[in-house]
């Protein structure tokens, strides 16, 4: 009876189904719509304050670091820490709370969603959100004088961005720097 139907040929559902991923992502997007203001505020204001502090503060003392222009060094570094923190916190605390206290994952896994789809969906969402938040400090750094070339995004171990390639290595003085680039950090150095 029941066993006869259970052993009959049936459609195997795929490992990562679009409908399941979409369900997980829709949940995240709808949830995000209820707290995007506070989350976006902290994720953009935080790195901006860092940029200002390191830019005006340290920027008046340091012009280059290990052969990199200081703004390239600080700008890309802040982008990296923003991505790190805005990714690590939802991934660690957010998922733990949903797993342990809110039992959200119990609810999702009782629907036709498998664990690998849940993990993939949550990962995709955190990656998308984090990538977007990483753009804010980058834009601020561009305003501060970060050269918006692909070089500032790449991980190549080239010691110089194209804009600073013409200058002599490592020893450019603050006055020379503020002439070549009208950046707030440069002015602060005067």
């Amino acid at each position: 009876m029941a066993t006869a139907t259970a052993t009959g040929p049936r459609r195997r559902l795929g490992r990562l189904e679009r409908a399941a991923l979409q369900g997980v992502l829709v949940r995240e997007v709808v949830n995000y719509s209820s707290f995007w203001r506070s989350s976006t505020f902290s994720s953009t204001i935080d790195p901006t304050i860092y940029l200002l502090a390191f830019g005006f503060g340290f920027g008046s003392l340091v012009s280059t670091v290990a052969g990199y222009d200081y703004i390239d060094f600080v700008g890309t570094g802040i982008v990296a820490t923003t991505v790190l923190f805005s990714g690590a916190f939802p991934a660690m605390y957010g998922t733990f709370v949903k797993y342990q206290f809110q039992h959200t994952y119990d609810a999702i896994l009782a629907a036709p969603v498998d664990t690998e789809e849940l993990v993939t969906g949550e990962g995709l969402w955190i990656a998308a959100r984090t990538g977007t938040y990483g753009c804010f400090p980058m834009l601020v750094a561009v305003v501060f004088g970060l050269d918006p070339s692909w070089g500032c995004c790449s991980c190549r171990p080239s010691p110089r961005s194209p804009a600073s390639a013409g200058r002599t290595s490592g020893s450019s003085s603050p006055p020379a720097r503020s002439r070549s680039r009208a950046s707030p950090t440069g002015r602060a150095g005067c």
Partner: protein
Amino acid sequence: MSSAIRLRGVVKRFGGITAVDGLDLDVPFGTCVGLLGPNGAGKSTTMKALTAQVILDEGEIDVLGYRLPGDSKQARAEMGVVPQLDNLDVSLTVEQNLLVFSHLYRVPKGERQPAVERALSIANLHERRTAKVDELSGGMRRRLLIARALLHQPRLLLLDEPTVGLDPQVRQELWALIDRLRSEGVSILMSTHYIEEAERLCDQVTIMSHGRSVAVGPPRALIAEHAGPEAIEVYGPPAKLTEVEADARARGWSTRRTGTSVSILRANGASDLDGERRITNLEDVFVLLTGEEIT
């Protein structure tokens, strides 16, 4: 006719503890089956095994003709689950909660809004649709939780302690809802430790103790079989109760303590006993079979 749920020889161990110990269970299509048992009898583990959130050590489970755990996703697509612990998204509104789960339960695009509206009527929450879940009362949250499980019009509904912690009015309201669903042909498996709930709602009851099923049958048949038609309830000081108990046992009757009194069962209306006569109920059966001691 095959069963909506069929369990055979199910065993689940957690370390040294055997939570479910060789359980057999059937839920025929279109019926409401109650899983009764004291705390720790293995009810919740059994419920979790039905959604493959607990993987068995031994035994087999078929749900709606799908063999678990391999085909559990297909089974989950056709059933609704109401968990014991409230797991609604508290920062979302009633409507948003339902909308999210209409996606998770794969309701087709054009049918999502009608499904949400239907769920709102089931939960009777049309006026509170824009309220955040945080602002709802316990009863409303529970109704929403049940309505959320019904978005995709499942053929089978799992209810894990659906009315725990609710006041009597809300409980009765939920009973009416569950009864309506059953009359519409939804198969229901409900775990509970409120005996009255099982007695009123269930066509069949399985009483569990220590991970096994100790009695199966319709509530009235179980009462007739294990408790007889009438109970005599004797009140008095503890010393007298102990005396009455010993006397009844000596005459081959069953007894159970009911806090301040002793209920004597299967005495067949013995006229020499001085006490209140009352109709037996499922609670008598439950205590007789699962034991009086709290372990």
